[in-house]
């Protein structure tokens, strides 16, 4: 129960001033710019774009600065900002098979068309703190290496699909309506389009833990990284007034296709099943976690026994959003004075009754404890 309380304005204003001072830190240290955040803390920016569910690097960098590096607070700021803007419509579906790939690996095939491209990765680093990480900068840009023609790199799943070894994606009829949880609140059971939308904006830590739980045996799915790719994809929109699709620019995406253990029926020979992850920016951990959880949430569709948290879509989707979660957890800081008064009154009454019951027991008048007392 909330009751309007007045007062505290001066304290609040002073607290905000103090916050601004703390945000700036030691004035002798140069102030950081949002361009520096965007360029040099780029994976933090990617996380804010992905969980803020808004692709805008400058805005995400600004939010990180304002939030003093608290990424969930920054995500909250981005989500609040997006509610102030009108919606211009939906893009054409992004074509990740035409991605300008900067990183692409497969854990299922060593040799595959397009090759294993490591790109900018922390993998294979020693995880030793380096006091001057910029010292490893190459003195000259990469030149003289002919990268070959800019042919699209085929998806690994397409290769498996051509042998019929992996399930086909559902046929796409683009005229069917696509669920949008920013327009209508989530209800259950949720179809896969809504589940993927929810996972794409879900908290990385939550999805990571759930994905990890499936590996540890809570609804095991035997996953392999069929493919992980990162790079730039063109965005197009087909405005009604124009009648044809126009390019808007490029965005960076990370895509993960998990290949999971087989499923077959009397009619269908066994084939690998799939889990899918697609994330704004470079975020492999989250793309992989998303693909694990997507696969796990397909349990009902694939006729699997429902026994683990990662298969429970209501549990997963209701708790994946860190803005909702932080809102409800942090609201506990708000005044609950009246609620608490009621609890106090109740507790005092219970204690009074307890004391009275004890007094009666000591007097040997309580019938409830008589047999036990007699046994002693």
């Amino acid at each position, binding site marked *: 129960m909330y009751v309007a309380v007045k007062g505290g304005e001066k304290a609040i204003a002073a607290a905000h001033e103090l916050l601004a001072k703390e945000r700036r830190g030691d004035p002798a240290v140069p102030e950081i710019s949002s361009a520096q955040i965007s360029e040099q803390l780029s994976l933090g920016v990617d996380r804010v774009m992905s969980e803020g569910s808004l692709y805008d690097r400058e805005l995400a960098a600004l939010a990180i600065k304002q939030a003093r590096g608290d990424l969930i607070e920054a995500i909250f700021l981005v989500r609040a900002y997006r509610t102030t803007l009108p919606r211009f419509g939906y893009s054409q579906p992004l074509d990740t098979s035409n991605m300008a790939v900067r990183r692409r690996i497969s854990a299922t095939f060593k040799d595959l068309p397009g090759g294993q491209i*490591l790109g900018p990765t922390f993998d294979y680093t020693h995880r030793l703190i380096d006091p001057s990480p910029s010292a490893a900068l190459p003195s000259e840009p990469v030149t003289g290496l002919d990268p*070959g023609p800019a042919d699209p790199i085929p*998806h690994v799943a397409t290769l498996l699909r051509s042998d019929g070894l992996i399930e086909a994606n559902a046929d796409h009829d683009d005229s069917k309506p696509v669920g949008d949880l920013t327009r209508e609140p989530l209800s259950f059971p949720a179809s896969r389009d809504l589940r993927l939308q929810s996972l794409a904006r879900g908290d990385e830590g939550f999805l990571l833990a759930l994905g990890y739980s499936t590996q540890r045996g809570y609804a095991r799915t035997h996953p392999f990284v069929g493919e992980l790719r990162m790079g730039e994809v063109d965005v197009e*929109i087909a405005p009604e007034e124009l009648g044809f699709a126009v390019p808007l620019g490029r965005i960076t995406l990370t895509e993960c296709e998990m290949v999971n253990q087989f499923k077959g029926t009397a009619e269908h020979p066994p084939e690998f099943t799939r889990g899918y992850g697609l994330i704004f920016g470079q975020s492999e951990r989250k793309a992989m976690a998303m693909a694990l959880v997507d696969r796990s949430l397909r349990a009902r569709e694939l006729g699997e026994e429902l026994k683990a948290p990662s298969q429970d879509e209501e549990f997963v989707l209701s708790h994946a959003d860190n803005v909702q979660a932080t809102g409800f957890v942090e609201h506990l800081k708000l005044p609950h004075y009246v609620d608490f008064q009621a609890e106090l009154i109740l507790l005092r009454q219970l204690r009074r009754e307890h004391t009275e019951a004890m007094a009666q027991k000591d007097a040997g008048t309580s019938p409830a404890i008589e047999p036990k007392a007699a046994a002693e």
Partner: protein
Amino acid sequence: MTGAADQMANEVAQRTTLLRICSEATDLELANALQALGDLPAMTEIRPPEVGLTMLRGRMGGDGPPFNLGEATVTRAAVRLGTGVTGMSYLLGRRPEAARTAARIDALGQLSAYRPLIDELLVQPVGNRLSSERLIERAEAASTKVDFFTLVRGEDQPP
């Protein structure tokens, strides 16, 4: 009939090329190109630059049915020439000035008197910059491509 359809398709392709270049040009490249065009015909702003959102869609498994991935900020603008030709722009990000300039360039690009000049001042130089940047990106990625080789197995070695 086919001739008219071909001409339509060609016009759309020409316009798409220019809009793609506008979407990847910097604010400065757009402003410089417009200024270099010299005196411009009168244009009315039928849609002043407006920042909004576009919901970006992905496909399940890369090639399956669409789903809503998340939104992006987009700026749009539209202008009309005295002749009735309209120009418009949609750009990723919050870029009101660039969107206004791009809409003007799109309108002028539909006039045969301006298009060759726009190609020379904007499409070619920005296209060249983009291709050299992309070439470097691809070369950098290619430098991290793994060359596997099989080690000689122990039991195959002479004793």
